[in-house]
């Protein structure tokens, strides 16, 4: 073989092989763990939030290459965003940033969005004072 063929594009492969923000946050302010009913994958996102802004994010994923890449990219994208901004985060942003996913793998990016929203829900539950600030925003997509 003079060439190496890959199942996903180079960006997805890079995030799969060298995932960003992999791990847990010991002092997390919000943790969300969701599973995909479709395939059985499970994704967990932990957030550290300060002054209404996502300071740090980590993920752990039980799933395929695109699920790992999606959670890696999602944590990269949401760092530095306000809660309000994060609440309107969409899986399409993950797909675009990854340069596209195969159609059958789009649900992996949806799982990343759900894990993030679940972590935000958890944060709001734990910090009722923050809930007031985002009361006007819908919590789930």
């Amino acid at each position, binding site marked *: *073989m*003079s*060439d*190496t063929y*890959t*199942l996903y594009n*180079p960006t997805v*492969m*890079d995030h*799969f*092989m*060298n*995932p960003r923000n*992999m791990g*847990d946050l010991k002092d997390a302010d919000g943790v969300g*763990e*969701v*599973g*995909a*009913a*479709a*395939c*059985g*994958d*499970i*994704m*967990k996102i932990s957030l550290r939030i300060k002054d209404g802004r996502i300071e740090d994010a980590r993920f*752990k*994923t*039980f*799933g*395929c*290459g695109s*699920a*790992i890449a999606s959670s890696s990219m999602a944590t990269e994208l949401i760092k530095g965003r306000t809660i309000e901004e994060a609440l309107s985060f969409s899986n399409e942003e993950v797909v675009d940033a990854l340069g596209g996913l195969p159609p*059958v793998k789009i*649900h992996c990016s*949806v*799982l990343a969005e*759900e894990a993030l929203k679940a972590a935000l829900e958890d944060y709001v539950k734990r910090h009722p004072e923050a809930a007031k600030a985002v009361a006007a925003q819908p919590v789930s997509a």
Partner: protein
Amino acid sequence: MASRGFSFPIPSMGPSEPISRVMRHVFLDHQSATPVLPEVFEAMRPYFTEYFGNASSLHQHGLRVRDALATARKQMAGLIQAENPDDIFFTSDGTESSNLAIKGVAYANERKGRHLVVSATEHPSVMNSVEFLEKQGWTCTRVGVTPAGLIKLDELEAAITPQTVLVAVHHVNHDIGAIQPMREVGRLCAAKGVPLYVDCEASAGWLPIDVKDWGAALVSFSAHRFYGPKGAGVLYRNRKARIVSILHGGVQEGGRRAGTENIPAIVGGGVAAAIAVERLQARIAHTGVLQKRLWDGLSSRIPYIQLNGPLPGPDRITTNLNLSTEFIEGEGQLLLCDLNGIAVASGSSCVSKSLKISHVLGAIGLDHALAQGNIIMTLGEANTVEDVDYVVETFATIVKKLRGMSPMWDEFERGVIDSVIAPTGRGKSFSAHAAEVSGKPAH
């Protein structure tokens, strides 16, 4: 190297060079394909250029390839110890052979009965042919298997009715390598007077096959599983089964399979069959040693890994290992194996376009979490002890890396969820946990 050289963050994996130049290559997917042997390729070569005739032609060009077809028929018959080479039909591959066996017998016996019996772990080409017939009014009984994947003979016996026109039981399962008790199955079918179709796709060239011993009416296999080319499928059919054609056209293959014969592939397939007969015992011995070394190595290096299907021994083909590694998913394992030069397969839902786990893993009652972590390794004659040792080391590193990324491994270590393979008694089951966190649909 068109794509970039990815750095691979496992220290022992070497520099981040283009993978194909630095890695050992180990092909462990012989269930999907095998390389064409040089002598097979050489035998095929003149049939592309010099001997290009059509076997239906009556001139010298046609008669020459007709002769080559007859030789290949004898060689294929020899592989399954069939007495009459005229019982060998050539098709395009195993899938076409299954379709012809199932639909051909069903349509031919429509007036006698419209009931079929198949084992629950047959290849998709059998399962989906049967489903197709069910939509047209046939009924089918799927006979269960034991947790090791062996057909339940009492269920099989009970399933056969006076309306049953065909029983289909594969010799060896393509996913878990279980060798079915064909002699017993054959006796049972003979006693009930129902023709038996045996899919030998996963066994031909790797295990002795004797159609007479089984009393099989139909047997299928294809050459690309035993070092022949793709495009040379076989359906053996003796007088015990009435069959009609499902491809309509000329009168090739005794009118059972219309269409111009793929002469080069058939010639190559015949030579591959003759070589398989010669090397059969050597192949079994060689892959048997590697299979044991591979499983012993993996099971001693990796905690919470299990072998699906029968233990290595008389009930399992020597080429197959079907593994479930707990707390991680199969596609990630497959991708990292590939990036390290190791070609494997998986029955996980993530690798299937339908997002469903292999129906075989479902049929043996494997826990969904274990099915998700499934990897299938199939050995061949070119694999070496060094290959096996490299796979053991590399796979152990891959498992460690993926477990480090998995929330399930972490939750297992914290006692939130329990192991299916070696329960500790702490925590809830993976499945219960997965159901909890996926309370709402993913879409």
